[in-house]
C-alpha cells in the first residue's frame, strides 16, 4: 500500500475534571490511506470522537491535554502547530462533518453564502460569481434539489437531511484529502440516512478523499467502511478489514457487540448482551480494561494484571487481547448457547 495520508501515533489525551483525570484517549494509533474509508466504531465514552478532535486541535486546553503522540499529515506532525496553520489545514485539507448540522451552520447566513465563503477563503483569486456557480454545482452534487433557489435559503429552511447534504458540500468544497465524519447520520431518520450515505459515498469517489467515519452504528459502518478500528475505554482494541471484523473477530469486545445486536433479518434469537457497564475513564480497571465484562477472562490472572498491546495477529488484523486465538471458539460457544448457527455468516 501507499503512504497513509493521515496517521495517528500513540495519542494520549487527558482531561482534568473535579472528579479526577479522565483518560479519554489512551495510546491510540491508526492511519487512513488515500481513497479508503476507515470506520471507527465504539460506544459512548470509548474515545472515538475525542481522538480526532484532539488530532485536529479542536479540544479545549485546559481542561484537555495532549500528553503525547503524533498526528502525521502528509509526512508532517501537525500537533502543536500555530492556530492559523492548523485552521488552514482544517479548512482546506482535512474537512469535518458533525452529527448535528444545525449547530454547524451559521443561522444568520444563507447556506449558499457559507459554502461560497469556504471556497473564497482558500482561493483568493476566485470571483464572487464563480464561487456562487461552484457552490451551486456542489449543492447539485450532494442532491439538494433546485440548488439555484436553495443557495439563497437559510439553514432553518432546510430539513435535517438537506442540512447534512449542505455540510457535505461545504466539506468537499476545497477538495480535502481527508474527510472526517463524526456520526454524520445519527440524527437522521433511516430513509434520509440512506440518502445521505449515498451522497457521502459519491462525494468520496468524486474527490478521492480518504474518509474516517466515526459511528456507534454497526450497520452504517458495515455499509461504508473498508477497514474498521474498534475502540473501547480510550483504546483501539481491534483493527482489520471490514469482512474480518464482522466474520472472524479477534477481540471478545467486538464479538460481544455482534452478539448484542438485534437484526432485521434471519432467525430471532435471544440477544447475548455484554454484562456490566463501560469502564470509568477516571479509575480504570487494572490490566485489560475489558476484563470485568469479559467471559473469556474468567479465572485468568493475566487479564487482570497485564495490559494487552495491540498487535498484528493475522496479516494486518490487529487485536489487543491476550487470548485472541480463543475468540473463534468463544464465538462458536456463544452461537450455540443462543441457538444460532455459527456458520454461514451468523454474525452478519
Amino acid at each position: 500500500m501507499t503512504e497513509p495520508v493521515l496517521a495517528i501515533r500513540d495519542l494520549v489525551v487527558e482531561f482534568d475534571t473535579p472528579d479526577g483525570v479522565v483518560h479519554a484517549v489512551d495510546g491510540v494509533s491508526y492511519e487512513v490511506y488515500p481513497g479508503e474509508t476507515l470506520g471507527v466504531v465504539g460506544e459512548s465514552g470509548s474515545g472515538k470522537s475525542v481522538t480526532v478532535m484532539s488530532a485536529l486541535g479542536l479540544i479545549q486546553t485546559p481542561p484537555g491535554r495532549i500528553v503525547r503522540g503524533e498526528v502525521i499529515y502528509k509526512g508532517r506532525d501537525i500537533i502543536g502547530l500555530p492556530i492559523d496553520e492548523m485552521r488552514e489545514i482544517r479548512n482546506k485539507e482535512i474537512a469535518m462533518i458533525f452529527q448535528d448540522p444545525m449547530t454547524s451552520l451559521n443561522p444568520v447566513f444563507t447556506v449558499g453564502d457559507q459554502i461560497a465563503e469556504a471556497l473564497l477563503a482558500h482561493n483568493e483569486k476566485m470571483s464572487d460569481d464563480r464561487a456562487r456557480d461552484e457552490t451551486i454545482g456542489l449543492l447539485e452534487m450532494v442532491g439538494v434539489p433546485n440548488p439555484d433557489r436553495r443557495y439563497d435559503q437559510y439553514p432553518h429552511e432546510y430539513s435535517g437531511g438537506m442540512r447534512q447534504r449542505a455540510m457535505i458540500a461545504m466539506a468537499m468544497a476545497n477538495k480535502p484529502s481527508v474527510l472526517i465524519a463524526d456520526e454524520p447520520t445519527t440524527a437522521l431518520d433511516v430513509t434520509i440516512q440512506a440518502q445521505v450515505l449515498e451522497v457521502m459515498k459519491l462525494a468520496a469517489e468524486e474527490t478521492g478523499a480518504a474518509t474516517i467515519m466515526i459511528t456507534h452504528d454497526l450497520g452504517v459502518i458495515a455499509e461504508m467502511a473498508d477497514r474498521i478500528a474498534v475502540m473501547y475505554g480510550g483504546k483501539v482494541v481491534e483493527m482489520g478489514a471490514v469482512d474480518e471484523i464482522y466474520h472472524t473477530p479477534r477481540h471478545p469486545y467486538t464479538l460481544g457487540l455482534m452478539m448484542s445486536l438485534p437484526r432485521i433479518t434471519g432467525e430471532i434469537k435471544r440477544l447475548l448482551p455484554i454484562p456490566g457497564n463501560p469502564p470509568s475513564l477516571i479509575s480504570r480497571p487494572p490490566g485489560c480494561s475489558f476484563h470485568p465484562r469479559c467471559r473469556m477472562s474468567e479465572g485468568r490472572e493475566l487479564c487482570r494484571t497485564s495490559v494487552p498491546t495491540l498487535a498484528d495477529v493475522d496479516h494486518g488484523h490487529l487485536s489487543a487481547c491476550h487470548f485472541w486465538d480463543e475468540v473463534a471458539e468463544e464465538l462458536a460457544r456463544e452461537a450455540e448457547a443462543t441457538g444460532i448457527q455459527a456458520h454461514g455468516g451468523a454474525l452478519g
Partner: protein
Amino acid sequence: MAEEAISYNGRDTDPERPVLQVEDLKVHFPIKEGLRRRIVGFVYAVDGVSFEVGHSETLGLVGESGCGKSTTARAIIRLLDPTDGKVTFLGNDITTLSRKDLRPVRRDIQIVFQDPYASLNPRMTVREIVAEPLRIHDLYEEGGEDRVAELLRLVQLSPEHGNRFPHEFSGGQRQRIGVARALALNPRMLLLDEPVSALDVSIQAQVINLLIEIQEELELSFLFIAHDLSVVRHISHRLGVMYLGHIVEMGTRQEIFENPVHPYTQALLSAVPVPEPRGRDQRERIVLRGDVPNPANPPSGCVFRTRCWKAQPICTEETPPLVEQFGHVVACHFAAPLEIKT
C-alpha cells in the same frame, strides 16, 4: 354506555377482550397566530389511528420522526387530549374520563420514556423514585419497603443501589430504574416510548432482554414505540407502521418483515443499514425521494404519495383505507409484495 364512561373498573375483565383498543384516534394541534392567538390551522399529528393490543402481547409502532407514534402513546394515557376517537382499556371507555377518574387507569397503564437522564428526579434516591408511585396512591405504608426491594430485584439492580442517586448510574441502569418505577403499581400495560434508543448497543441488549423477561413473568401488554426496526422486530409480536399520522400497514412481525406490501414499509426496511459487509454492493435499495411532508399541510389522498414511486392520479384523489390485503391490513391503492434483497 354513559355509566361506563364515568366509572373505571379495570380489574374484572374478560380475558378474551383486547387490553387496549384504539379507534380512529385523532390528535390535532392548533396553530395559533397573532395577538389574539387566532387559530390559523392544525398540525395533524395523529389522524385516524386504530389498533388493539392483546393480553401479554407487544404491539410495536414504528415510523420516522414526526409520524405521530409518541403522540399516540401520550393521547392514550391522556397526557394529551385526543381531538377525536375512542380509547378502550380493559373494556372501559377511558377517552373522556375526568382527571380524578383517570387515576386508577394510570395505575394500570404506565409509561417509560426515552431519556433516562431527564425522566428521573436527580434529587431523589433510587428508592424514593421507585416508591413514589406507591406513596401517591397511598400504597406505601403497607409493605412498601419490601415492594421497592422486590422491584429493584426484578429489574436486576441490587438493593444497595436504592440509596444512591440517579447520576451515579449509567444510562442502562437508569432505564432499569424507570422500568422499576413503572412496575411499582402492578400495571397491566406499559407504554414504552423509545425505551432503548438512547442506550449503547451492549446495554440496549440488556434492557431488551429484561423487558422480554418482565413481560413473560408479569403477563404484561406492551405498546412499544421505536424508530429502530431491528429492535422492534426483536420484541414485538405485531407491528404497526406509521407515516404522517396514519398507520399505513399492520400485521404480525413475520408478515411485516417478510411480506411487506406497502411501498413505505418496503422502503423503510430496505433503508436499514445491514451489519453485514458481504454483498453490500449488490443490495437493492429503495432510496426514497425528498422529505416527509409538513403535517400541518398533509398531501391530499394518500399521505405517502409525494414520495411514492407507484403514485397514480387516484392516490391524490382518494385516501386509501386500511383494509386487509395479502393477509394483513394495509392502506395503499397499489399494495403488492416486493422482492427485497437485504
